[in-house]
C-alpha cells in the first residue's frame, strides 16, 4: 500500500455508500436550520463546520466538484458525531450518519497508521486485552505519581496530549469489573423477568462502581441480571473511525451471544453502547443472513434510564435526596437514541430532588469518544460552553450516563474550579433506593 493519500481513489469509492445512498445526500434541502445546533459551527462559525456544509461537501465529492483531499477529510473528522443535527433537521437528513459513511469510505481507501490499526483491529476485540493496555496507567496511578504530576505540571513538559489524557482519567478500579461479577445475579424479590446486561469496555475498565450500581438497581427492580463474560466492544470506536469490518464481526458475536440467553431486554448503562447496539438493525439491514436477528436484538436494547423508569414500580420506593440536580444528556442518548424523558422522569421521582434543566438544548460536552484528545482545542471550547450552561442552573450535582461525558465533565469541573459533583444516574438512583431502605 502506498503511503500517499489518493483523493481520486477515495472520490470514486463515494459512488456508493454503505447503508445510505445518494438520495439520502440529496435529501438535504440546505435550509440551514441545523447550523446553530452544531457544536463545531458554534466554535468555528464557518459553513465548512456545519451539518449542511458537511452534507454539501459529501455531495460535491460524489458529484466530482471537489476533491476528497486532506482538507475535505479534515472537515469530515472535525464532526463530533453528536447527531444534534439529526434531532433538529425537519427534513430527516442524517448528516451525522452520512459523515460516518464518508469516514468509512475514506478509511477503506487510505493508508492506515499502525497504532490505529492495532487498536481497532486487534486490541478492541477482547476486553482482557484492552485491560492489559491500561495496566501501565494503573500502576502509575497506584504509585501516586498521578497526584504529583497533576500538582507540578511535570507532564506538560513532556507532551500536552499525554497530560490531557492522564487528566481525563479518573482513578481506575483495581481490576476490571467483569473479573468480579458472576455470570448471573438473581432478582431481589419475586422475579419479573430476565435482563441481559451489556457491560461496556469503559464501564468495565474505568467506571466499575457505576455498573455495579446499575446491576444492583436492575436486580432490585425485580429482574435477574445475566452478564455474558465474553462480551466484546459495541464497536463505537470503530464506526467513529470508519472501520466496519471488525465492527460487523464484533456486532455479529454480540447478537449471537445475547440471542442464546433468552433475555427480555438488553440493558446498558453506557449511552454510546446503547446507541450502537440499537443501530445494529440499520447496519445489517442489507445483509439478509442476519438482518432479522439484528432487528430483534436491537429492539430489545434499553438504556439504563429507559429500563429503570419502567421497571421500578411503586413497590420499590425512592428515598429522598435534597439536592439541586441537572442532567447532562449524552448525545448518544438524546440525539442518537432520541431519549429525553426517561432520565428526567427518574430524577423527578426522587423526593426532595430539585431538578434544573440545562439551558442548551442538548449541546455536546466535547468528549465525543477521543475527540477531546484528537481535537483538543475545539473540544475544550465546547466544554467551556457546557460549564457556562451548568453554571446558569445553580446545580450541585451533574448527572449523566455515558463514560466519555462523565470523564469530560469531571475534568471540566476540576479545570474550571467548580464545586458540583459529577455522577452517573445509576449511582444517584442507587443512593436514593438505599436511603429509602434505611428509612424502613
Amino acid at each position: 500500500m502506498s503511503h500517499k493519500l489518493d483523493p481520486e481513489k477515495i472520490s470514486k469509492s463515494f459512488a456508493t455508500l454503505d447503508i445510505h445512498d445518494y438520495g439520502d445526500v440529496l435529501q438535504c434541502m440546505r435550509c440551514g436550520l441545523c447550523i446553530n445546533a452544531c457544536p463545531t459551527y458554534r466554535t468555528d462559525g464557518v459553513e465548512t463546520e456545519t451539518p449542511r456544509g458537511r452534507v454539501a461537501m459529501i455531495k460535491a465529492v460524489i458529484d466530482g466538484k471537489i476533491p476528497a483531499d486532506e482538507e475535505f477529510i479534515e472537515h469530515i473528522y472535525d464532526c463530533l458525531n453528536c447527531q444534534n443535527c439529526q434531532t433538529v433537521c425537519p427534513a430527516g437528513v442524517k448528516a451525522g450518519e452520512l459523515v460516518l459513511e464518508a469516514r468509512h469510505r475514506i478509511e477503506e481507501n487510505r493508508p492506515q497508521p499502525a497504532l490505529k490499526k492495532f487498536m481497532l483491529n486487534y486490541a478492541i476485540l477482547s476486553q482482557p486485552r484492552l485491560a492489559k493496555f491500561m495496566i501501565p496507567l494503573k500502576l502509575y496511578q497506584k504509585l501516586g505519581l498521578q497526584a504529583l504530576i497533576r500538582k507540578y505540571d511535570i507532564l506538560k513538559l513532556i507532551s500536552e496530549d499525554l497530560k490531557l489524557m492522564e487528566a481525563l482519567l479518573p482513578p481506575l478500579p483495581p481490576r476490571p469489573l467483569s473479573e468480579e461479577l458472576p455470570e448471573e445475579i438473581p432478582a431481589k424479590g419475586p422475579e419479573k423477568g430476565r435482563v441481559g446486561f451489556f457491560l461496556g469496555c469503559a464501564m468495565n475498565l474505568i467506571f466499575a462502581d457505576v455498573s455495579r450500581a446499575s446491576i444492583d438497581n436492575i436486580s432490585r427492580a425485580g429482574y435477574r441480571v445475566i452478564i455474558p463474560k465474553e462480551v466484546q466492544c459495541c464497536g463505537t470506536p470503530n464506526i467513529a473511525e470508519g472501520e466496519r469490518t471488525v465492527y460487523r464481526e464484533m456486532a455479529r458475536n454480540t447478537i449471537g451471544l445475547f440471542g442464546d440467553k433468552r433475555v427480555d431486554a438488553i440493558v446498558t448503562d453506557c449511552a454510546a453502547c446503547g446507541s450502537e447496539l440499537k443501530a445494529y438493525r440499520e447496519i445489517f439491514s442489507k445483509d439478509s443472513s442476519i438482518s432479522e436477528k439484528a432487528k430483534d436484538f436491537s429492539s430489545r436494547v434499553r438504556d439504563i434510564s429507559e429500563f429503570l423508569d419502567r421497571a421500578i414500580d411503586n413497590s420499590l420506593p425512592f428515598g429522598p435526596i435534597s439536592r439541586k440536580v441537572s442532567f447532562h444528556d449524552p448525545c448518544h442518548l438524546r440525539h442518537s437514541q432520541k431519549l429525553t424523558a426517561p432520565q428526567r422522569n427518574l430524577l423527578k421521582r426522587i423526593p426532595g430532588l430539585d431538578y434544573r434543566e440545562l439551558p442548551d438544548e442538548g449541546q455536546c460536552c466535547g468528549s465525543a469518544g477521543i475527540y477531546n484528545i484528537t481535537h483538543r482545542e475545539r473540544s475544550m471550547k465546547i466544554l467551556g460552553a457546557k460549564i457556562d450552561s451548568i453554571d446558569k442552573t445553580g446545580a450541585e450535582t451533574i448527572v449523566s450516563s455515558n463514560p466519555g461525558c462523565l470523564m469530560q465533565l469531571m475534568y471540566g469541573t476540576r479545570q474550571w474550579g467548580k464545586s458540583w459533583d459529577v455522577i452517573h444516574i445509576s449511582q444517584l438512583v442507587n443512593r436514593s433506593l438505599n436511603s429509602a431502605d434505611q428509612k424502613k
Partner: protein
Amino acid sequence: MNNLIISKLQESLGKSKVLSSGTELYCYSYDATPLVSFKPDAVVKAHNEEDIQKTLEFAASEGLPVTTRGSGTGLSGGSIPVDGGIVLLTTAMNRILELDADDLSITVEPGVITTAVHNAVEALDLFYPPDPGSMKVSTIGGNVAENAGGLRGLKYGITGDYVLSLDTYFIDGSKVRYGTKCVKDVAGYNVTKFLVGTEGTIGIFSKIVLKLVPKPKTKKTFLALYDDVIDACRTVSAIISRKVIPSTLELMDNVTINCVEDYAGIGLPRDVDALLLIETDGHPAVVEEDAAVIESACRENHARTLRTAKSLQEAEELFTARRMALSALARSKPTTILEDITVPRPAIPEIMSCIKEMASKYNIRIGTFGHAGDGNMHPTCLTDERDQDEIHRVHEAYQVIFDKAISLGGTISGEHGTGYAKSKYLPAMVGPKAIEVMKKIKATFDPDHRLNPGKIFPREER
C-alpha cells in the same frame, strides 16, 4: 482569483478572516435556494466595521464583486455570488450593542440571530414581532435585507416596520447612518425604509436599530381542521372581512401536515385536508371578543373541529411545527422547490384551486402552506432533481400559477425576495418603467454593479 490577490487580502485583514480553499469556497456557493450554486473567489469573515471597510476598499482596488451573506437561509439566492468575487460574512458581528427598555429599542450588529433578539427583549417583557420560519438561524441583517415576514406579520407587520435606523456601507467604502432612534423622523428622504428589502444590492448594514413594542398581555391559539382546503381558504377572508386581525393566521394542507407530523410527532391530525393555525393576542377582553368572531367564521365555513391550545407550551409547539413546514416537506423527496406567491385575501380560494389543478394536470406533488392571513402562500413541489422531465413539468406548472397570481392582482414573491431565482419574472411583474427606475437607483449607489451582482435584474436586462 490568483494566490497573489488572496495573500494581499489576507495581509490586509489577517489570515484567519480570509477563507480561500476550494472546499471552503464550495461551501459558500449555495444558500437555501434549490439548484443554484456559484463559487466565490474568497470569503471574508468580518468581525467589525473596519473589516467591512477594508474588504470594500480592497474589492474596489481589484474591481471585484462583493456579496454579503448572513446565515445563508435565503430562498431566492440572495447571498450566492453569481459573478464570483468576495463573499462578506457578517455572522461574526453578532453583538447586541444596546437594549433600551425605556425608549423601546434594540441596537444590534447585523449578524445577531433573530431569536437572540427575541430572547433578549422578552426577558424584559418587550416584544420584537418579526418571526420568520428560519428565525433560529437567520440574521437580523438578512431579515432587513429581505424584509422578512413571519407568523405574526398579519397584525404586527414585517421586519421593515421595526427598522428605525441603519448604518450602511456602500460599495465605494463610504458609510452613512440613516434614521435615528426616534420613532418619528422625516429629515430628508426616508432612505432607511428604502434600504429595507434591497436584498444586499444597495448597501451593507453594519448596525441596526429596531423598534420594540410591549409584550401582549394574553393570547389565545386555535387549531381549526377542515375536510376541504378551500373551506379553510374561505375562512381566511371571512375573518378579515369581519374586521378582525388575528396576530397569526397560517395554513397547512394535508401533504404539509403529514410531513410536519412525521418530524414533530405532536399529534396533528393526518386525515384532514387542511388546518388553520390562528392566534389572537392583546388585552384579555379584546382577545375574547376576537376569539368569538374567529370561532363563528370557522364554523360557518365548515371547520370539522376547532380547538384551543390548552397551554402556552402547546401553542408554542404548534408554532414550531408550522415553522418547520418547509424543511419538513423536504422529507419525502430529494428535491424541494418552493414558491412564494401572494394574492389579495379574497382571492386565496381561487389561487388554491389553481394550485390543486396544476398539481394534478402536470402530475406533480405539491404541498402548500403559508401565511394565509397575508395572502402569502408557499406551494412547494416535492420532486427529484435527477428527473429532468418532472423538473420541466414543475416549472411549467409554476408558470401557470405565477400568471394566475399576477392576474388576481398578486405578486410572485411575498417575502423571499427576487434575488437570483426570481429575477427573470420581475419584468412581467412590475413592467418596463419600474425596472428602468430601479436600475437608475441601483446605478446611483453602485454604478459598476459590483455589489451583489446578478440579482433582481435579469441578466439580459442589465
